[in-house]
């Protein structure tokens, strides 16, 4: 298994947005050249501008650009890239892509194709894990493709409530919660539809819904010399429609003993598929601290930064290191967890309107900064947020000594973050941080959907300032009238005054 260390000179980043920028930054800091690929919508994107080279690979629709293996391999071969980093999403968990890279002599910065395959099909993964002695969530146990009829029959045995999940799944796509047989047909149809759209595969299976469970995952790293280590857990129970919204490291629910047990289990899971590079073992943990393997994500995870802040390891640099054939920079004994970190996913969606995605142009942007604040983003002022891609436009990561300090610091950072031109979920995060149950660490995966509201608590409602809102609106309205009158009243504007132009512009936009 051991290979001679390969010197990379140039890395192609087969992704866009914040994760492409994240990888390019790591490469720059390692002195590596970078090749970006971009669709029509992304010509001016940060990842294009920050890379050493950039090549157009097609229309904005991912199916015709970021998801087309051949286009990406062509660019890699043309530019002499030694390696490809797939980021997350897109081609990152396509075994065929990892294999095609290997065939062309290009290092795929991720696990080998076999590991991806074994973990990619969720049914196969369940079997493999059970054989390796890893506990899995009870569910359908057939390896065959299941018809709606099969599933209805199996549902009785699994017992309600249960989850329909896509065999090719991930990211909550094609997933439905079902509480009774009556809901089954509708849920199956909609899950299959979403799975087909997302993965090109409408097959689904069933899992028992573990009530009151937390979603906790373990970061693992493996090298080509047979070492696998874990970097502790991440708490990811703050979700809405199976989309994670806020993650933290460590989990307020995990003690040293549980961490050691889950870590050992995750290492065993990775070893069972000869895992190399970074991966994440996702688990459900019930109220009694029993844990169940859910799935393994065979790629860099969105929320990897919280682990970086607490373990002080750069996971992307470590990925590149092991892809070059070098051993991991640390052994399990050398992994220490210090302090606390939290990540808020900043999404272009309207928390006051059922979290509907929001599109538009970022007319103004102020990033939070100062001690303990990290922003991983792929957008700058002037960028358009389209419906083609994921609504996540940034990750705000905050670290500090204790969970309490981190919550206060995150509140501070969120309130400094100003994104104008489209709606974001920043108010959601602020409301969440204010909720007493969140502060106390008392939540499970259903918390946001079932026990959280954007309406302020009675105590917080006392702090509302409707009179200030009224004054602000009246003054803004008044000023706008005045300015409109001014502009109309002149034949020629004083064009040397850039603020006036900006204001005039603003007015027209309203």
């Amino acid at each position, binding site marked *: 298994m051991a290979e001679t260390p390969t010197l990379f000179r140039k890395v192609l980043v087969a992704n866009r947005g914040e994760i492409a920028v994240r990888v390019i930054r790591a490469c720059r800091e390692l002195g590596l050249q970078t090749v970006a690929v971009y669709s029509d919508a992304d010509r001016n994107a940060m990842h294009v501008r920050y890379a050493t080279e950039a090549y157009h690979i097609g229309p904005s629709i991912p199916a015709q650009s970021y998801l087309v293996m051949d286009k990406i391999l062509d660019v890699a071969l043309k530019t002499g890239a030694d390696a490809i980093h797939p980021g997350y999403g897109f081609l990152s968990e396509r075994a065929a892509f990892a294999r095609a890279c290997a065939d062309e002599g290009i290092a795929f910065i991720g696990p080998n194709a076999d590991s991806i395959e074994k973990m990619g099909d969720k049914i196969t993964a369940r079997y493999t894990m059970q054989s390796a002695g890893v506990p899995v969530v009870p569910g359908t146990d057939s390896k065959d493709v299941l018809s709606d009829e099969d599933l209805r029959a199996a549902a009785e045995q699994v017992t309600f409530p249960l989850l329909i999940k896509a065999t090719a799944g991930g990211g909550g796509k094609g997933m439905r919660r079902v509480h009774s047989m009556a809901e089954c047909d509708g849920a199956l149809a909609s899950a299959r539809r979403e799975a087909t759209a997302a993965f090109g595969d409408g097959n689904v299976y069933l899992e028992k819904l573990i009530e009151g469970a937390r979603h906790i995952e373990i970061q693992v790293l493996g090298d080509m010399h047979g070492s696998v280590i874990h970097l502790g857990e991440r708490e990811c129970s703050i979700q809405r429609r199976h989309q994670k919204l806020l993650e933290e490291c460590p989990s307020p629910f995990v003690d040293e003993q549980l961490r050691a047990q889950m870590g050992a289990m995750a290492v065993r899971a990775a070893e069972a598929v000869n895992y190399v590079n970074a991966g994440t073992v996702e688990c459900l943990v019930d109220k009694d601290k029993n844990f169940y393997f859910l799935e393994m994500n065979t790629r860099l995870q969105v929320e990897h930064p919280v682990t970086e802040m607490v373990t002080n390891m750069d996971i992307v640099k470590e990925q590149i290191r092991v892809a070059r054939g070098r051993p991991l920079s640390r052994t399990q004994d050398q992994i220490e967890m210090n302090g606390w970190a939290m990540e808020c996913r900043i999404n272009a969606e309207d928390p006051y309107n059922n979290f509907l995605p*929001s599109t538009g142009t970022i007319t*103004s942007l102020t990033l939070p900064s100062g001690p303990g604040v990290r922003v991983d983003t792929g957008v700058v002022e002037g960028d358009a947020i389209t419906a083609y891609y994921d609504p996540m436009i940034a990750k705000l990561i905050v670290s500090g000594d204790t969970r309490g300090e981190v919550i206060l610091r995150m509140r501070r950072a969120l309130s400094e973050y100003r994104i104008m031109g489209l709606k974001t979920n920043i108010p959601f995060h602020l409301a969440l941080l204010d909720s007493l149950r969140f502060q106390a660490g008392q939540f499970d995966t259903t918390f946001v959907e079932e026990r959280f509201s954007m309406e302020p608590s009675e105590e917080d409602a006392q702090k*509302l300032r*409707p009179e200030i809102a009224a004054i602000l609106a009246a003054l803004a309205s008044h000023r706008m009238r005045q300015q409109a009158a001014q502009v109309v009243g002149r034949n020629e504007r004083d064009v040397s005054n850039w603020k006036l132009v900006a*204001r005039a512009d603003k007015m027209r936009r309203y």
Partner: protein
Amino acid sequence: MRYEVEVEGHDHIFEIVINEDRVILVDGEEVAIDFTDLQAPGLYSLLVDGESFDAMIEHQDAQWNVLLRGHLYEVHITDERTRRLHARAKMLADDSGEAKITAPMPGRVVAVPVEPGQAIAKGDNVIILESMKMENELKSPRDGTVERVNVKAGDNVEQHAVLVVIA
């Protein structure tokens, strides 16, 4: 200039008079203010008797959204005459006018679980719209009858397109 300002969800109506630069009247009381707009369109700084407020404000017609210290206030501004007219119009229209379900963003219609003539309740799904790879359920804002359905499954729709009309 005299404004009637209604802050929704908080049952407050304020009468605000703005004449001078540094002092306004709120429900007849003088309030010392210092109000400036920052470079970013929609960002404002307000000092009220020294207290500092940083707000994001946007509006459509008379409806203003003020995002202040993490909370969104929906504010309606009118002068008195307009307000009376609106109140009357609203009274007449309430529960009797049309409600239009529009596309909140561009997307593809996945399913239309309603048809014209069907009676529906507030909160019922009327359209499932796929956008950014997720299915979004658009719900009826009130009880009523489906008057018109403008789209079918598979249609691509633009933002703001009227999809279904409830009467």
